[in-house]
């Protein structure tokens, strides 16, 4: 099962290049027109520490550097992270419907954020209240789900899945209740947060997110061989020589890290974690060692494109990114499904 055949030599770096290109192109597109030439001049000025002046207005510089760039970078990070997490979850649970939120983390984050918004935590804890509580909500949820699924030192995947679903229901009920007692204004705020957006991205939030997301992604890619072995079942994996429980724990921690950080900076963006892994598997094969990196790049490309559409389709209005991901991604996915039905149920 060697992966370094010529095909992959071309495929992966090609995909990486495509990601870089989408990032660069996305920075050039936006509701306010900034000419590509000006943008390149701005970059040159930046790289040369000001030695090559760009002659571009401050307003345009602000738009490119302070608004667009962190946003695109964050979209690429979150897209890649969620896609890789989704692939890992599908491999871990041996289930094509698994995705990063399946253990209740999105519901936990939603509950945390709703709590913060509806009960006015912002007035007490400042502007970081919402992302912080969303993060805490997500992390506490997965920790709780893991703990209650533990029997006899082992955590069977079926139990995990069911506990996660149950926890998700409970937390959704909390969110619904909070929505009910909310004032009209906070209700709107909650609904918008839940739909997800990269609009508030700053270099601060992008920088903060990059560490955990990149780290988590690298851990998962490193464990992709373990994911291969896990496809044969927990017991067989044990016989093959894997410390199954330890591996499961590390995978879940990495997924939790990526997902919790992603939802806290950009809200709940669905679809990426579920469908991009399938697209990666359909195009690159079921070997996780190749599927995960492909998913990472594809997820990044997908969210960068989706975000670009979200901010330009109806300019100067912004559309929540969740709408774009679902309406663009779903038809493409259905098309792919019809062409290669068998590959979806690889297990």
């Amino acid at each position: 099962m060697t992966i370094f055949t010529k095909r992959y030599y071309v495929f992966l770096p090609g995909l990486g290049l495509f990601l870089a290109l989408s990032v660069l192109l996305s920075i050039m597109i936006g509701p306010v027109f900034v000419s590509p030439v000006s943008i390149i001049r701005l970059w040159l000025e930046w790289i040369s520490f000001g030695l090559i002046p760009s002659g571009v207005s401050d307003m345009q510089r602000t738009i490119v550097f302070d608004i667009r760039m962190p946003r695109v970078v964050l979209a690429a990070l979150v897209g890649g992270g969620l896609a890789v997490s989704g692939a890992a979850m599908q491999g871990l649970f041996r289930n094509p419907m698994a995705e990063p939120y399946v253990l209740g983390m999105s519901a936990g984050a939603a509950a945390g954020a709703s709590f913060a918004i509806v009960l006015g935590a912002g007035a007490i804890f400042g502007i970081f209240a919402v992302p912080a509580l969303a993060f805490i909500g997500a992390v506490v949820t997965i920790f709780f789900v893991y703990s209650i699924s533990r029997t006899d030192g082992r955590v069977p995947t079926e139990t995990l899945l069911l506990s996660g679903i149950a926890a998700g229901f409970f937390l959704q009920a909390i969110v619904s209740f909070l929505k009910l007692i909310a004032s009209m204004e906070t209700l709107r705020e909650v609904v918008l947060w839940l739909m997800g957006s990269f609009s508030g991205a700053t270099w601060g939030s992008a920088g903060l997110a990059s560490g955990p997301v990149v780290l988590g992604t690298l851990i998962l890619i490193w464990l992709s061989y373990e994911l291969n072995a896990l496809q044969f079942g927990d017991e067989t994996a044990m016989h093959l020589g894997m410390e199954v429980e330890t591996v499961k724990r590390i995978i879940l921690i990495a997924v939790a890290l990526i997902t919790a950080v992603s939802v806290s900076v950009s809200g709940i963006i669905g679809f990426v974690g579920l469908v991009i892994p399938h697209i990666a598997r359909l195009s690159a094969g079921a070997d996780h060692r190749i599927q995960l990196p492909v998913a990472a790049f594809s997820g990044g490309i997908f969210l960068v494109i989706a975000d670009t559409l979200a901010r330009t389709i109806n300019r100067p209005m912004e559309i929540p990114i969740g709408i774009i991901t679902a309406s663009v991604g779903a038809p493409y996915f259905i098309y792919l499904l019809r062409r290669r039905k068998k590959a979806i149920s690889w297990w």
Partner: protein
Amino acid sequence: MGIIGQNGAGKTTLLKILTGVKRPLTGTVILDGNCLDTLSRKKIAAIMAVVPQNTFIPPLFTVEDVVGIGRYSRRNNRFTESFVDRIAIDNAMKRTGCIRFRDKIISELSGGERQEVLIARALAQEPKVLLLDEPTANLDIMHQIKIMSLVKKIIQKSGFTAIMVIHDLNLAARFCNRLLLLHDGCMLAEGCTAEVLTEHNIDTAYNVKCSIQFNSVVNAVQVTVVGCTDSNLNNCLNFDKG
């Protein structure tokens, strides 16, 4: 060594304890001089390989993929295949004969062929002990003989030990050197084949009357089942009489 006994006698449980999947209530398992629970899974896998029943393998993997994953405990580099790995995989496939369909997908194989692949995977692990769980279950008679002969040949050539849970007494009699007869969670008899397979033992363990004869064609004792000794069952069978 073959482990035989009725369903529910504890064969699978014993196998699980031997491989470290289940913890024994009392006592310890000693592998190669070490207690099983002190060894890491990788170390265990380096000594012991398990061939499960062929009931489920992910259908889209190729034969080569499946055999290759057997190298999990031995690989140095997880992303590339070393020369050593390549040789081990090819050898394993050659010895079991599945090299002839190495690129086929699992879903395209028959039960017997899948069993070969699983044995090849175990061999790729380069173990000293092979544990097999009912390798002949669900196989037709041709494949049954094929698999049993294969295992016998492997043991003879490589000096492995094989411990096999098997339900077919005659195959066990023919291919196993030693037998372990389980009954009700306890060891009823242990020893070489002729010692264990007595009419009395089989009556106790299986509740059947049998006749044991030596068959010179296959050079082993063969068990022919005559009828049940279970009074309940006899009553059922005689139902229409009275």
